[in-house]
Structure formats: C-alpha cells, structure tokens
C-alpha cells in the first residue's frame, strides 16, 4: 500500500521514458521480428512469449499527424499542437512534434525521438524533433 501523495510509477513505461530522455530508447522485438512497446509479456502481433529489448533506430518517419485545437484539460495551454505517429523501423510511436511550426508538419518528415514537458502540467511526454 502506498500513500496517496507518493509518486507511483508505471513499471515498464516510466523506465522507457527515462531511457528515451537519455538517448537510449529501445523497443521490444519478438522472435519473429515484430516490434512493440513495453510493458508487455506477449507480442501483440503473433503471441510469441520470446520478446527482448533492442535499440530504437535513431531516425523515424512521420506517417500521419493531426494539429489539435481542442484539448483535454491537461493540454489546454499547449494548443495548437501536432500529434504524430512516427515509424522507427519495426515499431511506431505516438508523440508531439517539436521545433517545427504546426503548419509545416508533414507526412514523410524524418525525425528523432525525445522526451519533453507539456506547457499545461509540466508532465513528461514523447516528442519528435526534425533530424
């Protein structure tokens, strides 16, 4: 039992965020070369139990994006912001674009992954920067 005011982590996820912030991002690869993100015990693509951490490729590509104007309370001061899905080799990740004006975000943009903080709450979030 933990106290309510004590910060409880999400095991598997929070370590991943720290690793990405340190430039040591990884993903999970199963024996059949399917990529996924932690925490997982089973490959979501084939059911393999044989999964291991491998380094996340440094370069990714934006596959789709949206510029959000109406946000949840946790992101109201961040609007407008671009949420993107980027492919890094065998795995895709969802994050926000940084260092590019929202009107200049486009499919095909080459990016690298990082961790930054939201303007509204200061919470960590996954971001992409042009590479």
């Amino acid at each position, binding site marked *: 039992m933990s106290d309510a005011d004590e910060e409880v982590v999400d095991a598997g996820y929070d370590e991943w965020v720290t690793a990405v912030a340190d430039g040591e991002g990884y993903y999970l690869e199963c024996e059949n070369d399917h990529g996924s993100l932690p925490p997982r015990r089973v490959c979501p693509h084939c059911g393999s139990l044989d999964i291991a951490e491998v380094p996340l490729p440094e370069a990714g590509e934006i*596959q789709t994006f949206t510029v959000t104007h109406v946000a949840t309370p946790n992101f109201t001061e961040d609007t407008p912001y671009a949420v993107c899905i980027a492919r890094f080799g065998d795995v895709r990740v969802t994050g926000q674009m940084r260092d590019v004006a929202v009107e200049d975000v486009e*499919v095909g943009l080459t990016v690298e992954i990082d961790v930054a903080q939201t303007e509204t709450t200061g919470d960590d979030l996954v971001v992409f920067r042009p590479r």
Partner: protein
Amino acid sequence: MSGVRVAGVGLTPFGASPERTGRDLFAEAGCDALADADVDRDDVEALLYGNFMGELAEHQGHQGPLMAEAVGVDAPATRFEAACASSGVAVREGVKRVRNGEADVLMVGGAERMTNLGTAGATEALAIAADDLWEVSAGMTFPGAYALMAQAYFAEYGGSREDLAEIAVKNHDNALINDKAQYQREIDVETVVDAPMVSEPLGLYDSCPISDGAAAVVLVSDEFAAEHGLDASVSITGTGQGGDLMALHDREYLARSPAADEAAEEAYADADVRPGDVDVAEVHDCFTIAEVLALESLGLCEVGEGVSAAADGVTTKDGEMPVNLSGGLKAKGHPVGATGASQICELTMLLRGDHPNSDAVPEAECGLAHNAGGTVASAVVHVLEVVA
C-alpha cells in the same frame, strides 16, 4: 435455437439536458420500450445495460441494478462497457441469451450523461477509450485519433475535406424530421469546411456533438412473441464482434478498421445475407471519416471509395443505400453508452415503417447496424430483418 424478436423500442430525445440524471434518462427509454413492446415488466428476466463514463460523469459505478430499479424491473442486471460500443455488446449478449434458451424476455439498452461535464471534461472522459500510457499521454484526444486516421486515409486513398463534409451535410439532412435528434438543422458543405478546427483535418461539423440520452429495446424469443400475440415483425438475425490492438500506432492499418471487417463478416454469415442484401444501414459516424471506414468494412463500398459515397449520392436518403437515416451520431447525437442500442431502435422503426424517414425505404427488409468502440478496437455489427 430460437429467433430473437425486437418486441419494442424506446429512445429519449438526444441532446443537451445536463440536469437529467442517467437513471432518469434510462427510465424514460426503458418504460417506452416496454410500452411499445406491450410486455409486462414482470416478464423481463434480465437487464443488459451499456454505459461508458458513468464514474466520471456521475461518480456512479455499479449502474446495472440502479437502472433496473429506475425502470421498475426486478431482475438481475449487468453493465457492459466497450467505450462507444457499450450497448452494442450488450445487444449482442442479449441475442445470444435468447438464442440459447437462457431467456425469453430481456431488456437491453444503455445511457450516457455527458454534457454536465462541459466540453473539456467530456473530451477528457472520451479520451479514456484510448491507450492512456501511449496515446492520451501525448495529448491525443478522441477527435485527434480519428483525425490521424483521416490524414492517413487521405494520404493512402485520396479524398478531401469537402468529401467528408458531404457526409455531415447528408446526416444533418436526414435528421431534419427526426424529433429525437440533437440537431434538426440543415447545413452546407461551406459551413462544414469553414467551421473551427477541432483536430485537423476534422472541424466542428465533422464531429458528433456531446450528448445526453438513453435507448432501450425489449428482446423476446419467437416462442414468447407467438404465445403472447406480440406485434414483433423484426428479428435480429445476425450478430458479430471484432477486436483490434488498442493503440492506433500498433495497428497494421492506420486508415482501415479490421475489427469491423471481422464483425461484419461474422454477422453476415450468421444471418446468411450479403452486403448486396442490405437495404438500409445505421453506422457509427462519430466523425465523418468514421462513416467512410464503416462503409468500407461493411462491404457497402470498396476500400478507398467510401469517402465519395455521400458526395456521389449513393448513401443519401434517395440513394441506392441510405446510410444513417436517423441523422447518425453526427446529427442525432452520441450519448456513447446509448448509441449501439439506439441504432437497433432506429432500424427497427425504419423496417416496421413507423420511423419519420421510413418513406425513404418503403420496401426495406434488411437493416445493418455498426457500432464501434474507441478507434475501432471494438466493433459490433448486427443484421435486422423483417420476418413477419
């Protein structure tokens, strides 16, 4: 195996009634369904009830027995949750129970109170249908998720905001004479395209409203309908459900909804009908792009062609395959836990001939309902047919 008749339907008006409690909304729909069915409430053997955000909107869990009490049904009650497909999965469970002889009379439905949360609060509540760790943490809203799919669709198959706008225009047009609809207001393509952006490329008029409302149906076995001389001409003859990975970024396709493909395939096979047999459909158009994905998954359009179906007049009221004659989620409204059951209500009335838009489909004998949860990580499809 018994057939499953829709003996009665009940719907509250959909719209903004922030002061009305969920229990009051469901009581109205449930009582109307019992009256429409001409079934005694003492005959109801169970309530299967769909609701999504009751904990957030009303600080109320354990809603099954609460809703049974509200409608005066003294029977076991269970809540079903599958995001926006919550009452769709409840209907499916009801169909199975009647078919396998577990029950002769069931009430199935759902309710949602949303507008009391305000726009930001409802946006936050809806977002919990997405993956909290990987999607919500990045600021992905629900309109944002569908916008990601819309952008991917445009990139892969083409289409434009104007094409999507034609879907909103069509569904608003269909709702004009539906007194249960939240928006009985004509709009044009220019209005849709020029509206404020919610999450690009989806604007305010590409999005369904935030709504309060409830829907209920009374399902009975063929035997019960015959013994009690019920006027129940419509049966649910096919049911199917599909699933997909939770987060959009983990899926093979960003611009397709395979869970609905699976649900449709199962429902068609179950009813022994084909897409060409369908006369009228109610599909889950929470956003204009969602209707496109639905049409393609249901086999009503080829992949890549759903985006122009409204513009081409295929799915309009006078088209060969009218879609969302109720107004759809877009114009009728989307109290999420009520939506799946409300589609069954609308189709039943369309097939019986007592829906405001029945004149558009006077010969209709086969209807299709498509209810999706999240970014279609859950999908439920039902086939309804006139059997008497």
